[in-house]
């Protein structure tokens, strides 16, 4: 089965979401800058969001006649709101960390290690 030869369906969106997700995960795993890690998180969240949108879209579902098609979008909106809140909290933590250590290197934040 060749994706490129198929009409656009859920699978295509899932591929994009997976790519975004993996990019975000790699970004989180490799970036030492806290802000970079934050960006990686956004990528991961958005990868997941694309999946929600795809699964919730009327155009991509076979049972679309039964659905009003807003559930996926609503969850995506929740995720965005949560991401915003999380970003605000994380920024606050990061700024405090910077104030205390003069850096935003996450590898330096190991004072609580066992």
């Amino acid at each position, binding site marked *: 089965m060749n994706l490129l030869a198929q009409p656009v369906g859920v699978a295509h969106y899932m591929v994009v979401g997976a790519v975004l997700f993996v990019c975000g995960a790699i970004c989180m795993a490799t970036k030492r800058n806290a802000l970079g890690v934050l960006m990686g998180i956004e990528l991961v969240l958005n990868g997941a969001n694309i999946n929600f949108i795809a699964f919730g879209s009327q155009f991509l579902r076979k049972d679309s006649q039964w659905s009003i098609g807003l559930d996926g979008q609503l969850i995506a909106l929740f995720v965005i709101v949560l991401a915003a809140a999380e970003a605000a909290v994380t920024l606050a933590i990061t700024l405090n960390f910077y104030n205390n250590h003069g850096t935003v290197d996450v590898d330096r934040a190991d004072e609580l*290690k066992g």
Partner: protein
Amino acid sequence: MNLPTALPTLLGTACLLPLLSFVVILFFGKYLGKHGKGASYVAAGAIIGAFALSAISLCGWVGQHPLVAVHHGGGAHHADAEQAWLPAVVATKLADANACSTSSPIRLANLSSEPAGSEHAAPQEAAPVNYNGDWYTLFEVGSLKLTIGYYIDALTVAMFAMVTLIASCIHIYAIGYMHDELHDVTDHEVALADGHHLHRPGRFPRFFQYLSLFCFSMLGLVISGNLLMTFVFWELVGICSYFLIGFYFERKSASNAANKAFIVNRVGDFGFIIGLMALFGAIGTFQFGDTVDDGGNTIARGIFSQLRPPENDYKLTLPDGMVLSSAGEQVAGIVNDHADMGGLTAAKSQIESQIPDWRKNGFGYGLLIVAGLGIFCGCVGKSAQFPLHVWLPDAMEGPTPVSALVHSATMVAAGVFFVGRCFPIFTQEVLLVIAYIGCITLFIAATIAMVAVDIKRVLAYSTVSQLGYMMLALGIGGWVAGLFHLFTHAFFKSLLFMCSGSVIHACHTNDMRKMGGLLKKMPYTGYTMLVGCLAIIGTGIPFVAGFSGYYSKDSIIAQALSFTNQNPVHRILFLAAAGGASMTAFYMFRLWFLTFIGKPRDHHVYDHAHESPPVMWAPLVLLAAFAFGIGWPLWGLTNMLEQARPAGTIETVTGAVVWPNVVHPSEYLSHEEAIHVPASLIAFGTALSGFLLAAVFYAWQWLNPAEVQQQFGKLHTFLWNKWYFDELYNAIIVQPVHFVARRVADFDKHVIDRFIDGCATAVRGLSTIDDAIDRLIVDGAVNLFARWMHSAGIAFRSLQTGSLRQYVMFIVVGMVAIFVLVSFFWNYAWAM
């Protein structure tokens, strides 16, 4: 004022005042004045207040119940004078009877002076006037009622006045005598281990505290309205004497004497309790007097009227309860015969009808004798009668004011008082026992007193001897004579003791052999003591007048003579009384001559001697006045005692069961000229002979006492060692008890202790094993688990690196791993 309500209030308050003083000194003694000197004022104030109340009561009593002159034997019979105030009927009866008079108008109306066996119908006597009632009921269950009550008759009132008066004098005297205790005391009689003498703080307030409690106890004993209350105060008096005799408790001799007094009294009290149980078990009440309701009806009968019921002319009668408890088998037999339910009433009526027969057959009489002997046992202990007399001389270890109080007014008088109070309970057999015990006591004690050299011990044995006189008098039916002697003796014995205290205070020794010639140095003490000596030997001009002892001793000897005339078998009682009078005169004047007359035998002591301060000699003078004159018929002391004479004792008594021949002659018969005149002459003669003998030895020194002593060496040693009573008791009681105690201790040590030790060792072994199990297995398991947990924690610790990127890697890798695992192993059946 209404006497029946006023008397209990007045006398009750008089009784409680010393208790109040005791409490005040107990709590605030240290803060009362400098070194607690104020304590003496509190105590003296309380007892003087009590005396004031007693004196008011006495006046009230005499006002209500006028004292009527009893004509004293020896003189003419003043029938005319007596008839002046008598109702005509009574006067005629009196004239018919041609005998003695009595005191109370009530009594007179019923008086019979006819000898027993007379053909005339026996006239009735009356119970003595008394007020009795309850202040407080402790508890009441069925017919059992225990109360705090009072029984006030002429004897109570007179005792109150006497006790409080003497106690007041002694309190005042003690302020002077005990002044050493106001500051620190060095007790030269107590040597410590380091060779120094004991140095201790003074105990002035404590002395007065005990003294107050003592007075409270004695007054409570006198006023008590039932046997239970009497017993409580009886024991309180005992414990107070224990405290006071052991006042110098650091001295071995004093603490020994206190213990001895206490233990010997326990022996007597054991008998007392048996007597109480016998009495209470049989008749079911402790009350002395009848309980009367507002209307004057008798609700419950007291001991006295149960034993001497008015229906039987106040003759000693066995109460039904005593007969029944003794005839238990017969009662059970009758009940068995009527075993069916309906027969119970029949059985009851048959039992009731049988009671007179049983009584006639002597059922219960033994119980009554046991009750009487038991109660007398207690009195033997308290009044130091043979064979329990050994404690009293040792009690001299206490301070002298205590001796004066104990010996005259309070503790030892309690026994005689109580015999007098319980007189209606005693059968003739018991009375005879009392008489013999008194007789033996007076003889033994008098002989010992003749050789004693410790001034206080002479007086102590003299007390024992005089108490013997009182017991003897009571035992031969001389109720008034015995108690009269109690009163006069109280005054002169307290006087004598306080004089001896004054001498000791001046000389710092008790040994008469070191004294002599002190009369010039201590005139007050010497002359007041002379008054006391004259009073105790019964000095008087026969048939005219004399010191107080003359009257009381004469009446005892007259009664003894009267008794002997009726019972020639028992003439020893009279001989002892008469001989005792001679010995009394001898040892008293031996004491006085040795102390006050002749040349000083120890110049160190003589030079040091001085008259005591006024606070000490003033009470002596007062008491000397009383010792001189309290017995005079003028004051009517005997008339007052007559008012309290127990019902049923006016007439001559016969009919004892065990010794049927004993006759207890009426006390009035001893007032007859035929008896009183010889008795007076004999008493005078014996006293004079004793006095002359003492004078020959010690005043004129015609004979050398030392030579006589050598001549009768063995006798002297025997008396010197107090008839070896202490040694005897040591041999027959103390040593066996020690022997048994040692055996018991051995058993305890070698058997019981062994067993217990064995048990302990076994338990210890077991617990060692248990301990090992606990430590090795239980603790080991727990510790092992803890170590595991610890190392696991250590191991997991390194997982928390704090590296964010690593965590993300773990998450991703973990997710992939889960995904792979699920892809390989997921089974759709699991979702179903």
